């Protein structure tokens, strides 16, 4: 922990946060927010949270920025000035914010210092995870073993939450009727609609490598930063890259709406299915060690490692499908006719 580096990154983060709130152009706000997310990654890597930083790099800085740009593309780019007579509301908002900040500051005074070894959060269950993960599961990456094994329930329901979010986006936005033709919003700046050969060529060459990397991230999550969530988001991002550089219909030809929802279902089903398989074999829900009965040539420790790999694959499939589905719906305003 180098506090000088920490402080300078934090200063840049605060500047980015101010800028993204203050700037009048929403497209600039989205891009500055992407920079904010990248700085966050840097901060987390510096704190030793490599898995979190990896997730933020693919989700926060990648997919979130694309989603913001898609939403800005479908609405208006500039913020209109507020009509007069609302100054009082701003003052009240400022007062409420300052009051909340003050309360938090008072509460913060009782906190253990930063990077304190004897902080309560590091004393209760976390020493068990750190010392026993290799012995229990043969997985050196503790984050993966805690995510997929020790706290498997949590992760399963988080996957369900993501799936529900995907369904909610479809329920809110999707329109099946062919009503009025697509009319570009007023400041129509983002895409002129003609093919750009260089961008298309580079994107087409990159997509297979991105997908290969995503599979590596999923499969190698036991030994290095990564896992189902990161790999799934990268897989989804490769399809989004294809949708942006080519056109909407290309991706729809590979991954149509039905497949997206089916794959999202399948991912959650794989996760829960492995849980029920453990239950059926006579152990607790998501207790993978019992899988040594059905997996050939594995002892109870390796069975836990393989069980984790199984659920990571399920998570990756679900996250990939949902990320693609959310993007396709947001960028075409639910009409599936034309994208960025």
């Amino acid at each position, binding site marked *: 922990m180098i506090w000088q580096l920490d402080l300078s990154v934090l200063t840049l983060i605060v500047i980015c946060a101010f800028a993204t*709130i203050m700037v009048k152009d929403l497209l600039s706000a989205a891009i500055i927010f992407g920079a904010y997310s990248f700085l966050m990654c840097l901060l987390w890597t510096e704190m030793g949270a490599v898995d979190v930083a990896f997730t933020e790099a693919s989700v926060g800085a990648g997919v979130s920025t694309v989603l913001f740009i898609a939403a800005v593309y479908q609405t208006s780019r500039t913020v209109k000035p507020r009509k007069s007579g609302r100054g009082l509301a701003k003052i009240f908002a400022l007062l409420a914010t300052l009051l*909340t900040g003050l309360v*938090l500051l008072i509460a913060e005074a009782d906190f253990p210092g930063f990077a304190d070894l004897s902080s309560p959060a590091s004393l209760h269950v976390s020493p068990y995870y750190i010392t026993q993960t290799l012995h229990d599961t043969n997985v*050196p990456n503790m984050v993966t073993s805690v995510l997929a094994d020790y706290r498997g329930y949590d992760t399963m329901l988080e996957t369900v939450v993501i799936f529900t979010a995907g369904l909610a986006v479809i329920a809110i936005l999707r329109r099946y009727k062919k009503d009025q033709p697509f009319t570009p919003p007023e400041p129509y700046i983002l895409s002129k609609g003609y093919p750009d050969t260089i961008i298309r060529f580079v994107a087409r060459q990159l997509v297979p490598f991105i997908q290969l990397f995503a599979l590596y991230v999923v499969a190698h999550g036991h030994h290095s930063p990564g896992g189902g*969530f990161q790999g799934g988001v990268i897989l989804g991002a490769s399809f989004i890259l294809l949708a942006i550089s080519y056109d909407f219909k290309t991706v729809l030809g590979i991954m149509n709406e039905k497949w997206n929802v089916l794959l999202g279902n399948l991912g959650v089903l794989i996760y829960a299915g492995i849980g029920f398989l453990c239950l059926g074999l006579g152990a607790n829900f998501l207790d993978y060690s019992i899988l040594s009965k059905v997996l050939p040539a594995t002892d109870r420790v390796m069975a836990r490692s393989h069980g984790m790999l199984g659920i990571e694959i399920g998570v990756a499939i679900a996250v990939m499908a949902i990320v693609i589905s959310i993007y396709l719906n947001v960028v075409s305003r639910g009409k599936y006719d034309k994208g960025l």
Partner: protein
Amino acid sequence: MQAIISHYNYWIYILLMMIGLYAMLAKNNLIKKVIGMSIFQTAIIVFYVSISAKEHASIPIIAHGHGHGAVEAAIDVAHYANPLPHVLMLTAIVVSVGTLGVALAICLGIYRRYNSLEEDEIQEQLQ
């Protein structure tokens, strides 16, 4: 001085939370409100992650060779960052992209109906 070095992090997280909260309360544009919500989320996530940090600790991956039981040396708890907050926040980040998608979908739905994302214009049309 020591007290400042060990606590200034938290003050900056609180500042970030305040920026996010102010944007959610005071901004007129709905996309700006969503950005404020995202900043608020990251402020909370960075707060959790900072709890996991330990002085001179490494990343939470045990140094290992290949094959079964390659590591037999004793594992020092103080040598690795606390993995539990990392796990909780990793899933929280992925869920945050889900909530962001839903929030933007609602914004687009509002735009479809009122042809505006400005809070005061929507209010006028509602009355």
